[in-house]
C-alpha cells in the first residue's frame, strides 16, 4: 500500500484567538503550531494500515518552510516519507490547495509509485473550508468519502463508516480513493524516542507548486463580539450545593 496523508500546520490556540492589527491573520507570536487534530488521526490511521498490510506512508503538507516541523511530527508517529509543497509565502485557498495535492499525487503515479489511498482530515482546524478532499478526488478521477470515523481496507476496497444523527452511513469504495477522516477514528499514539530521532534526521522532499487565486476572497478576520460577564459564584465546595439545587430548580431542569 502506498498511502499519502495530507496535513496542515495550524496555530495552537489556547485561551483565545487574537487577530493581527491588519485583520488578515491570526496573531501567532505567542502560540506554537501543530497538525490539525483530524489530520493527526489521519496519520495514525495510515500508519496502522501499513503496520497491518505493509507499504509506505508519505506525509504531505502545503505550507511555509517551517511546516517541516509538522512533517517531522508525522514521521515521529511512523510515517516513512515527507513532502513539503512550499506555499511561497502566499495564503492558499481550497481550490489551489487541491490542485497542488492532485499534482503531487500525479507526479507520484508517473514515477510508478502512485498512491492507493489519500487520507486527509475532514476540515482544517483554522480555515474550515470542508472541500479540499473532494476537489482532489475530482481532479484525480477517484471516488471520495468524507467525515469517516471507521475504516477497513481489504483487497483493493475501502469500507468506510461515519455517524449521522439518525445512525450510521457506510460506504464501499474501490481504491485508489480519497478518504477524509474525523478525530475519534483512532487514538493517535505518542511518538517514540527512536521515532523522534529518525524524524529529526529524515530528508524532506521539497517542491514549489503554482499558486492560483480563489473565487472566495478574504477581506478581514474578526473575533465574534463577546458580551459575556464573569460567572456569578454560587459558593465554595459542598457548601454551595443548596444554592446549586435552587438554581437547577429555577432553570427548570429538575425532574
Amino acid at each position, binding site marked *: 500500500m502506498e498511502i499519502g496523508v495530507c496535513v496542515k500546520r495550524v496555530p495552537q490556540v489556547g485561551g483565545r484567538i487574537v487577530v493581527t492589527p491588519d485583520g488578515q491573520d491570526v496573531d501567532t507570536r505567542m502560540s506554537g503550531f501543530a497538525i490539525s487534530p483530524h489530520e493527526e488521526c489521519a496519520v495514525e490511521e495510515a500508519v496502522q494500515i501499513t503496520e497491518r498490510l505493509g507499504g509506505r506512508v508519505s506525509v504531505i503538507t502545503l505550507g511555509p518552510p517551517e511546516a517541516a516541523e509538522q512533517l517531522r511530527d508525522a514521521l515521529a508517529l511512523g510515517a516513512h516519507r515527507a513532502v513539503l509543497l512550499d506555499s511561497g509565502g502566499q495564503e492558499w485557498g481550497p481550490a489551489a490547495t487541491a490542485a497542488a495535492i492532485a499534482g503531487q499525487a500525479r507526479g507520484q503515479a508517473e514515477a510508478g509509485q502512485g498512491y492507493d489511498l489519500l487520507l486527509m482530515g475532514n476540515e482544517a482546524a483554522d480555515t474550515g473550508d470542508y472541500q479540499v478532499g473532494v*476537489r482532489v478526488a475530482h481532479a484525480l478521477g477517484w471516488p471520495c468519502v468524507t467525515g469517516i470515523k471507521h475504516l477497513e481496507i481489504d483487497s483493493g476496497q475501502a469500507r468506510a463508516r461515519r455517524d449521522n444523527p439518525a445512525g450510521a452511513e457506510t460506504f464501499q469504495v474501490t481504491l485508489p480513493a480519497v478518504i477524509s477522516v474525523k478525530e475519534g477514528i483512532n487514538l493517535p499514539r505518542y511518538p517514540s524516542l527512536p521515532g523522534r530521532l529518525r524524524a529529526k534526521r529524515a530528508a524532506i522532499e521539497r517542491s514549489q507548486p503554482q499558486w492560483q487565486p480563489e473565487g472566495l476572497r478574504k477581506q478581514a478576520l474578526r473575533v465574534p463580539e463577546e458580551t459575556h460577564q464573569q460567572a456569578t459564584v454560587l459558593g465554595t465546595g459542598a457548601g454551595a450545593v443548596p444554592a446549586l439545587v435552587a438554581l437547577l430548580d429555577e432553570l427548570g431542569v429538575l425532574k
Partner: protein
Amino acid sequence: MSVLCLVELDAAGPTDGSLRALTFARELAGPVTGGPALIAVLFAAANRADAAQLGRYGVTEAYVIEPEALDGYAPQAWARTLQGLASLVLAGAVVAAGTDRGHEVLAHLGALTGQPMAANCLSARPAADGTIAVARQRWAGLLIEDAVLSGSPALLSVATDALPPAEVDAPAGVDPPAVHVHEPDLAPADLAVRAEISAGADGGVSLASARVVVGGGRGVGGPDGFAPLEELASLLGGVVGVSRVVTSQGWRPHTQQVGQTGTKITPELYLACGISGAIQHMAGCASAKHIVAVNTDPGAPILARADYAVIGDLSEVIPALVAALKERG
C-alpha cells in the same frame, strides 16, 4: 436572484439545519418579483407533503427527487442533480445546511462546476457587481471571516447556528409551492459512492440534542472519576460530555467529546466540571442556554464564559449534589 436550497429530511420531515438554510436562502433571494425565487430540492422524499409545507418558509417552487430515480444518499449524484437544476432554473446561488451531507454535496458541486464554495456562512448580501459579501465561520465559529464570494452559481453552506429557522410573515397564509417530480440525468460514475444507512446503535439520549449535559474535563482525574457525573446526568435526564483531553487520554470514548472536533451541544444546562475552558471546547458548548462551572481555580477561563460557578473540587461537590437531589426525591 433565484436560489436553490438543498433540503435534508429525517423521519420527522425537513431537518432543523435545512429550515435554517431555507431561512438564510430566502433572505439571500430577496423579495419575490414574479418568477420563482426560492427553490427547494428534496431527495428520496417518500412523502410529498414535506415539499408542500415548505411554503411556510417562503419556498416558491420545489423539486422532489423520488426514490425510484435516485435511492438513498449518493453525494456526487446529489451534486449532479443540483447542477442540472441550477442550470434549469438559472440559480444565482445554491445553498445547503452546514452538515456532513451539506458540505459534502456542495464540495462535489464546486468540483463539478469549477466554482468556489463558502462553508459555514453566517450572512450573505448580494453586491451590485454580482458578487456576494459573506461572513463565515473559521475555527468552528471562534473567528469570523468577511469575504467576497464570486461564482455562478455561488455555493454557500449555512452554519447550523447562524440564525434561527423562521417562517414567512404572512397573516393571510402562504401559497404552497409548485411541486415538480424531477428525474435527474446521472452518469454511472455519479453513483459509484453511495451510503448504506443503518440505525443508531443505542437508543439513549444523544449528546447533540440532550437537555442537560454534565461535562467532565481533566479535573475528573482519570477514567474512574466519571461515576458521580454519570449518576448526576441520569438524575437530571441528561448525558455526560467530556473535553478533548479526556478523549485523547483514552479515559472516555470520542463520541462523548464536546468541542470543535467533537459534538456541538445545545442544552438548557451545561454543567462543566473540572473543565478549564479552552476555546476549542467552548466552540462546542457556546449554544448552551446556561453554563454552570465547577472548578477549583477561580481564574479558569471557563468562568469568563459560564453564567454561574461553584469554586471547589468536583469530587466533593458532585457527590454532595447527587445526595441532595436524591434526598429531594
